[in-house]
């Protein structure tokens, strides 16, 4: 049996999808930790344990910022192309993919199965998962709790363009005795507004699909949808979109349709 594996080494989490000729046979997430090389080795071990070793009948394509650390990969492809391919496979039609990642946010236009253009925010952590992580930490909660709090709050303004300054704003709100729910709602709105700004700059074509680790957060999806004035689609496999795209590339080469 031939296997096709996509490995997406992100800044926070590493996602793996294994395909055979007919569909997904395995998927898992590991924290990336401090060494992409060790993560790549841990992924290889995990694949061996499940009876599909990387040196067996398997083709691996690596993506994500740690893609070069996957020494057993046959090819590396950027996360933009992989999210485009994977997102298209999930939604099944031309669309705009919004990926809120750990250290960058991307808006990708996908036409006929392939990304045709993209815009990336990669110089600043405002509007990324990292921003949410820092603010959750400041509020003494984890990400899940941050969204739960936000849902019960009335958003306070957090207007700084910079994460470091935004953190000071959050501290001022804490100091002023504001409700944690309202601060949390403000934090989520800040990310939503940065992401919506990136979308406006790039332009949206077709339906919007949110991929990346935050696509499971219903509250964020709801706020983003309100902000964009259009439905935001998600998929249970959304956080695997990059890895799925990489696996599809491993299986199908460069063909237009996955």
């Amino acid at each position, binding site marked *: 049996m031939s296997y096709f594996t996509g490995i997406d080494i992100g800044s926070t989490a590493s996602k793996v999808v294994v395909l055979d000729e007919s569909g997904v046979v395995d998927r898992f997430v590991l924290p990336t930790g401090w060494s992409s090389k060790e993560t790549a080795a841990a992924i290889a071990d995990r694949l061996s344990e499940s009876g599909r070793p990387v040196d067996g009948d398997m083709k691996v394509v690596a993506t994500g*910022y740690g893609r070069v650390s996957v020494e057993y990969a046959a090819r*590396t*492809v*950027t*996360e*933009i*192309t992989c999210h485009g391919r994977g997102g298209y496979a999930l939604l099944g039609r031309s669309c705009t993919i919004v990926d809120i990642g750990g250290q*960058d946010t991307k808006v990708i236009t996908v036409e006929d199965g*392939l*990304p*045709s*253009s*993209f815009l*990336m925010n*990669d*110089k600043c952590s405002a509007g990324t998962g990292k921003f949410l992580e820092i603010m959750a930490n400041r509020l003494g909660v984890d990400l899940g709790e941050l969204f739960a709090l936000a849902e019960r709050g009335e958003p306070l303004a957090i207007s700084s363009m910079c994460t470091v300054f935004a953190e000071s704003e959050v501290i001022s709100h804490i100091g002023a005795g504001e409700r944690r729910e309202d601060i949390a709602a403000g934090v989520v709105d800040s990310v939503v507004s940065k992401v919506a700004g990136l979308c406006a700059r790039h332009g949206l074509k077709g339906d919007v699909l949110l991929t990346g680790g935050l696509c499971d957060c219903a509250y964020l999806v709801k706020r983003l949808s309100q902000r964009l004035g259009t439905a935001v689609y998600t998929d249970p496999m959304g956080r695997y979109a990059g890895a799925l795209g990489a696996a599809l590339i491993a299986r199908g080469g*460069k063909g*237009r349709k996955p």
Partner: protein
Amino acid sequence: MEKMDLKLPANFETYNEARQKGFLRMKEMKEQGARVVGMFCSFVPVELIYAAGALPVGLCAFTEEPIPAAEADLPRNLCPLIKASYGFALTDTCPYFYFSDFVVGETTCDGKKKMFELMNEIKDTYVMQLPHSRDAQALAFWREQIIAFQKKLEEFYGITITEEDIRAAIRLKNRERDVMRRYLELGQLNPVAMSGYEMGTRVDAGSFSFDLEQRCSEVEKRTAEVLADWEANYKGKPTDRPRLLVTGCPNAGVREKIIRAVEEMGADVVAFDTCNGIREKVEKVDESDPDVYNALARKYLNINCSVMSPNESRREYIGAMIDSYQVDGVIEIVLQSCHTYDVEAHFIKRFVTQEKGIPYLNIETDYSQADKGQINTRLAAFLETIEK
């Protein structure tokens, strides 16, 4: 994406090597009494400098080293080219600045205009007031500015510049424009005859060859070599490497991390709509105009830099280049805080993607290496959108 090495000629000199070699030549020429005028920008009518028996020299502005020193006096959120220009002067680390009798600046953008006021405290900096439109009033005003610059040269050196001096300089500089244009148009060959990295480097390095005649014969020789090599080894052997046009800000300071990087990923940079590309070469000074100042004013005002408003001609040039160089994608380089290019990018993107129907990538960057990884990802992803 696999990285491949660029094919460069055996005697290839990097921009920095050429710049350093030029220091010694300039020192010798100074010792023999040469007149030297320092400058930064292609809007300066160099014909007048040649007519004054002086050498125009492009001053250092393309590396990161002097920027921290410059930031003691200048705001940090200013374009790296302006900070480096001032930093080199402030730290006295650009021999060309040291050897310049005076510096001529121009009011192209706000940052430069105000920086020249600070530079004037280090060395005599004469500023030409460049208007930002191309109508009759602007032309008349710019013509007066050109005459005033001639007076500055005459007074500074205690000389008289005749019309014949200017006409001779125009003929010589026009010949150099032709030679450079023919060299840059080698980029129209398909498959490519040389890397864009080599092409851009050689054009910039050529400015350190101070004798214009000699510069012309060196570039003509290289043009012939490249053409012969192409005829013998590449002609009729098409490749699937995407052909790119680079537009936007001066790119000498980011050539390694953008142009070299994208070519090592498997693309060819074939065309430059930039200061060091075809932009200043396409239109020559009209030698038949009986009013020599009008001829100079018209030529320089037509340079399609984004400081001009409106600046539709830049889109027309880019459109024509996309066709004649058979371009598959456009990369626009915007140096951080360069407002005019940054804003105009809106039109360029729309024109390239909608009217010409090819992919466009905008990279905003500075001279640091901090964003090298992110730029590589963008470049690789951009090539992936082209390779279908």
